[in-house]
């Protein structure tokens, strides 16, 4: 089997029920074409179409897509040589996801099996909603996730003013009590604090709340600052959601400035996520997986020895322009038996959602 080309279809559509704070949900359908009747599918970021097409022609066309690890290494090296811009990390991550989809489809088995896992039953938590969401929207959204999908944990995006943060954390906790007596509370500060601000804010929060972990406590490159925060609070400091390369993770491993490692397969790909999860395991660090369209990150959960929890922002099986074979039940993400990553493009819906291609 050989890669013959790529078809990239950028799309935009209205958001679902989630108070996302933006009017359109966007991305691109990446279809990796082969000389067989198999197509590898990934939902990429808002890709620069021409750039991805050029990169595939240069690096992937003619390659056997089943050589996922070797191709990942080649793509990573090109990415590093070209100052991480041509192509960006999200491009090689999307291609890696599509390659793994092909590999599993070639085996006629679900991705989790190709990766060596057992059927995923992955601990899941709700991702954050917009800072601009009203209290009513917040209560409604988290409440429905807890009631209808059994989610036991959720992440709150916090702002610079402490009073509303405390009030909204209380609302979120109450909403989650539909699903559990001991909700997992997660905070995302989006790297808006200095280390000392983070310590003051988080200690005040911890006076009232038991927080499981905090993301974006300060700048993600500031490992001394993150370590200082970790030493001063009870909650785990979570790092990694915006990091792309091994080199960026290394200081956090080495200095233990992270208590939890977050991996985003949309940035580090599946291959990179597996490598980094093993490294994290070596340092006894639990791994959380950032949201992924179609919740396909569930496939990775049973091959990560220290997988802790995966973020879910949309619990449904039917997404705006595609369907997924991962369902969220009683707080767990469960993958089915469809070959590959289980994503199926809804051509009609995609046709209505296509945006002008290329940049």
């Amino acid at each position: 089997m050989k890669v013959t080309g790529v078809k990239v279809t950028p799309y935009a559509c209205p958001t679902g029920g989630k108070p996302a704070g933006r009017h359109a949900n966007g991305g691109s359908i990446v279809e990796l074409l082969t000389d067989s009747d198999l197509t590898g599918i990934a939902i990429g970021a808002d890709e620069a179409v021409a750039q991805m097409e050029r990169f595939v022609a240069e690096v992937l066309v003619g390659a056997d897509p089943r050589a996922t690890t070797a191709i990942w290494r080649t793509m990573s090296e090109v990415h590093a040589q070209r100052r991480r811009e041509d192509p960006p990390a999200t491009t090689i991550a999307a291609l890696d996801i599509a390659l793994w989809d092909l590999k599993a489809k070639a085996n006629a088995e679900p991705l989790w099996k190709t990766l060596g896992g057992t059927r995923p039953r992955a601990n899941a938590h709700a991702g954050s909603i917009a800072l601009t969401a009203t209290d009513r929207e917040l209560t409604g959204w988290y409440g429905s996730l807890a009631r209808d999908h059994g989610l036991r944990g959720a992440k709150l995006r916090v702002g610079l003013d402490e009073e509303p943060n405390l009030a909204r954390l209380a609302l979120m906790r109450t909403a989650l009590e539909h699903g559990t007596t001991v909700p997992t509370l997660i905070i995302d500060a989006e790297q808006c604090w200095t280390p000392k601000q983070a310590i003051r804010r988080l200690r005040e929060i911890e006076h009232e709340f038991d927080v499981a972990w905090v993301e974006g406590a300060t700048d993600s490159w500031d490992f001394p600052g993150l370590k200082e925060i970790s030493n001063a609070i009870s909650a785990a400091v979570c790092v990694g959601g915006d990091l792309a390369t091994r080199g960026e993770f290394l200081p956090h491993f080495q200095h233990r400035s992270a208590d939890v490692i977050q991996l985003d397969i949309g940035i580090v790909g599946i291959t990179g996520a597996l490598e980094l999860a093993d490294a994290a395991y070596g340092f006894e660090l639990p791994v959380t997986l950032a949201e992924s369209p179609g919740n396909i990150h569930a496939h990775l959960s049973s091959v990560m020895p220290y997988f802790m929890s995966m973020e879910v922002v949309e619990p449904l099986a039917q997404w705006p322009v595609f369907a997924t074979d991962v369902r969220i039940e009683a707080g767990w993400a469960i993958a089915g038996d469809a070959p590959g990553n289980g994503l199926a493009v809804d051509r009609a819906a995609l046709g209505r959602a296509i945006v002008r291609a290329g940049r």
Partner: protein
Amino acid sequence: MKITGYHVEHYLMKMDRLVGDANLPSGVEMLPGSILSLETDENVTGISLGYGGGIEGLFGAIEGADPRETVALWIKMNDWLHKAGNEGAASASLSAIDVALWDIKAKLADEPLWRTLGAHEGRVRAYASGLDYCLSDEELFAFYRRMAEQGIDTGKLKVGLDLKADLRRLGIMREALGIASPRPGLMIDANEYWSPKQAVRYVRQLEKHYDLIWVEEPARRWDYDGLRLVSQQVRAAVASGENLHNLADVYPLIANRAVDVINVWTGQSGVTGLRQIAHMAHAHGVQVSMMNAQANYMAHIAAALPNHNMMEVVDPGREHCLKWDNHIEDGFIVLGEAPGFGIEVDETKLRELQANPPTGRGRFPFPRRDGAGRYIVPPAPGEVPWR
């Protein structure tokens, strides 16, 4: 005086009750037993309890040697294992042989081992440990009350899966121990169920209500960064080490000031190996605590350690075919004058057990529980009697 041979007996015990921790809160009652007998040309036999596999691989190192040369033989066995390392099953065999050698040495001197090892008296402070996650609240109270009636005023509770229940049960344990002291000592053991930061959160919540002497295995056995982080962030001392098997394994914990108390036992390369660990810990101002043992036989070793605080007493009923020479009095394990470890095997009972192996629930050891180190999976309804 020469070592001439050995034989091993295996059998299966049904304990008097279930034992369980955060990894298997429903508990087990079956326990495999082994007795290694090391024979000499002078009609003295050394006995070692608990592990008897793989002796043939090491016996060549000690055959024909004078069994009284315990430490030299330990070095020889350790060197024998140089390439593959004093690890795994080989380490367990080395441990078993070393224990039997010390038993012989004391028996030849016609004295209890605590005296051979240089203790002033055969007396070791005890703490009660229920291995009690599988016990109902009533059974929990009954266990610690029975211990308190023997003067034991300190207890160690299994915790980690349910904060509310653990808070309640700490109170039950304290009340039960209250007849032995107006201020009973409280300890907790999570058996590596948490990540370091989970441990910090959990223990800080418990410490809002209780003063804890130590928290045992709040993070993985080798994770010196994580254990130190917990020690720095909670008031209680951090104890660990029971799942490490030699000084080399324990060294990073001591060198990095990761733990405040090291749990020691003969599985750490025998009497000789655990004494090395205790001595290194002592040099660094770190205390040690002896693990529980069948017939409390390890109290002999504890009695002679300079930095030993208290020894774990579980008493789940594991002495079916043993006779022993010690008892608990005023909160102390009091060792008698019988030579060696003071343990004798009741051959008739042993044969009965081997001929008619008992049956019961589960079997020791049990695996790590789902979620461990990452997220808490509380007991399902019906999994434990207290939920």
